[in-house]
């Protein structure tokens, strides 16, 4: 009786989760893999084969875009970590109890606004007739309007801005769990500031760093809106290629192949990152 109730509640609890995984993650991806293996040989005639993947390899623009997306995403991840770590450290360890809540909330505020509106905000600021350009002209520093949009630097800034929160949150939660006495012990035993940071704080925060980096990297590599709106035509983001295949060319088969390639590629990068830092996914999830 007791056992049945337990089992039933377990099933009830797990059903939504299992459904979600099955319907929204597993089935679409399997469908995508199947789709990507189909080749159009004539109108409405399909054949199974690796043609879509061979096309990808034969066309340097495609894999260059993928590599570029990957490396820019890595850069964004590193920048988000470098900027996010001090912020997270300040929130978790230095700020008083009351300011901590306020600061954390402040970090969450950008999430209140949709991606699209945020990107438009950047556009309003940065375009040729935008706020910054106008102010610079008005102050006499420059004499003609400057276009800040549509270059890599702007794309990276915009991306860092959108994803940094996902770096800060796991970092704050791991650093918060760190006993202050541990840092003090680090100093007490003779460590200087940099030593304590390198040998105690960073190793302790490693699970948070890794999970933050994974989330940020995945989000960046898979983002669409920010690179397109801030980078324009020459942003060359891989998601743009996928969109192009699906919507513009109506070539679902190759779009699916691209999508699957993006997944494989980003997973590979994450795996490589875990290998290099000597972390495992299990211990990262357990401790952050």
């Amino acid at each position: 009786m007791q056992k049945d109730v337990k089992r039933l509640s377990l099933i009830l609890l797990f059903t939504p989760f299992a459904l979600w995984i099955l319907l929204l993650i597993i089935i679409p991806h399997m469908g995508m893999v199947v789709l990507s293996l189909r080749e159009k040989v004539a109108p409405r005639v399909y054949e199974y084969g690796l043609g879509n993947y061979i096309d990808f390899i034969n066309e340097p623009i495609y894999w260059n875009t993928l590599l570029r997306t990957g490396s820019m995403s890595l850069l964004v991840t590193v920048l988000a970590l470098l900027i996010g770590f001090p912020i997270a450290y300040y929130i978790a360890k230095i700020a008083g109890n009351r300011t901590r809540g306020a600061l954390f909330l402040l970090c969450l505020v950008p999430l209140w606004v949709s991606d699209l509106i945020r990107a438009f905000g950047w556009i309003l600021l940065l375009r040729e007739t935008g706020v910054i350009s106008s102010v610079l002209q008005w102050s006499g520093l420059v004499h003609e309007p400057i276009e800040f949009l549509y270059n890599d630097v702007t794309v990276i800034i915009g991306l860092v801005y959108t994803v940094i929160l996902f770096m800060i949150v796991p970092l704050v939660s791991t650093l918060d769990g760190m006993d202050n006495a541990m840092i003090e012990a680090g100093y007490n035993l003779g460590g200087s500031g940099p030593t304590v940071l390198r040998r105690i704080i960073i190793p302790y925060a490693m699970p948070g760093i890794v999970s933050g980096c994974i989330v940020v990297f995945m989000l960046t590599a898979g983002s669409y809106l920010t690179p397109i709106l801030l980078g324009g035509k020459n942003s060359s983001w891989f998601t743009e290629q996928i969109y192009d295949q699906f919507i513009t060319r109506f070539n679902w088969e190759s779009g699916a192949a691209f999508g699957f390639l993006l997944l494989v590629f980003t997973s590979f990068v994450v795996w490589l990152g875990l290998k290099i830092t000597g972390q495992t996914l299990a211990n990262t999830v357990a401790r952050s």
Partner: protein
Amino acid sequence: MTTSPAYDLECINLSKNFGPVRAVDDVSFTIPSGSFFSILGPSGCGKTTLMRMIAGFEDPASGDIRIKGKSVIDKAPNKRNVKMVFQHLALFPMMNVYENIAYGLKCNGASKAEIEARVRDVLDRIALPDVAEREIHQLSGGQKQRIAIARCMVLDPDVLLLDEPLGALDLKLREAMKIELKLLQHQFNTTFVYITHDQSEALVMSDHVAIMNQGKFEQIGTPQELYHAPNTSFVAGFVGDSNRWSGRMTVINGDTATVETDAGLTLLCSPAGSIRPEAGQSVEIFVRPEFIHAHRQDTSPAEDEPAPVNQLDGKVDSLLFNGANSRVLVRSSSGQLIEADVTLTGGTDDLRPGEAVRLVWSPQQTMCFRT
């Protein structure tokens, strides 16, 4: 003020405020080399704050701290040769035992061979030679304790600070670690400053104990001095068990005084404390349970009982059996419960609850302090 390096640690008029709270108030003390010094006080009296100032984590508002005769006020925490064992030990969970102990040596720039030799040596000394490669979570509570001490001792500190290091342990382990700590201190021959709010820890282990209350040191002395000759009523009440009365002193005659308690009892007592009470003042009276003798009212007391004694009649409320430390709780006619040591042999002679008893004790054992 002396600067003789015979003292490992000197604190001179140290004070510290947290906003309106005066956590440490004008504290001065000196600790001779190689001794075990405890600071005993109730929760929130400023013990941790005092220790954090010595370690350099808090800046004192005023005063000076000298280690081996040299002022360390301007030195950063990592430049002071004072090591600290934290309340929850603060071992580094991402390092194994060996790395934990080696951390401080690496910070000092010791060579690999030297680190290896010294870590092995200190592990031998704490009698845990085989745990070097273990992770911290694979150690027992008592082992963690010893590793935390070894991690400090491997650096040859001038003073080792311990902030209630036994607080997290269960009772049985605490008892064992008490003796262990004392032995370790002997072995390393380093000055230990031990913070606790557990008086039995302080009394058992220490050469000297300071009693702290509300940021001030009430008294510094050997455990025996504090127990038998307390300076203030706070010390008398805090160290050891006591029966207490409050009242007013009516007559004082040399070493004995007569006090009328609030419950209307007249007691003879000896004035104590650094400021002696005077006639007419309100006082507090302390009598330790081991000095009170309880016997049945129908039996007469021993013939050689000294003449002027304090007497109190009452009924046995309950017996607290604890082997050789058994006590009897007696309810006096005014309703107060009084504790007295008794010998319970298990025979028919023992006192039983409900019996009428008379309590007697001498005025010399009746300490009376000005309030």
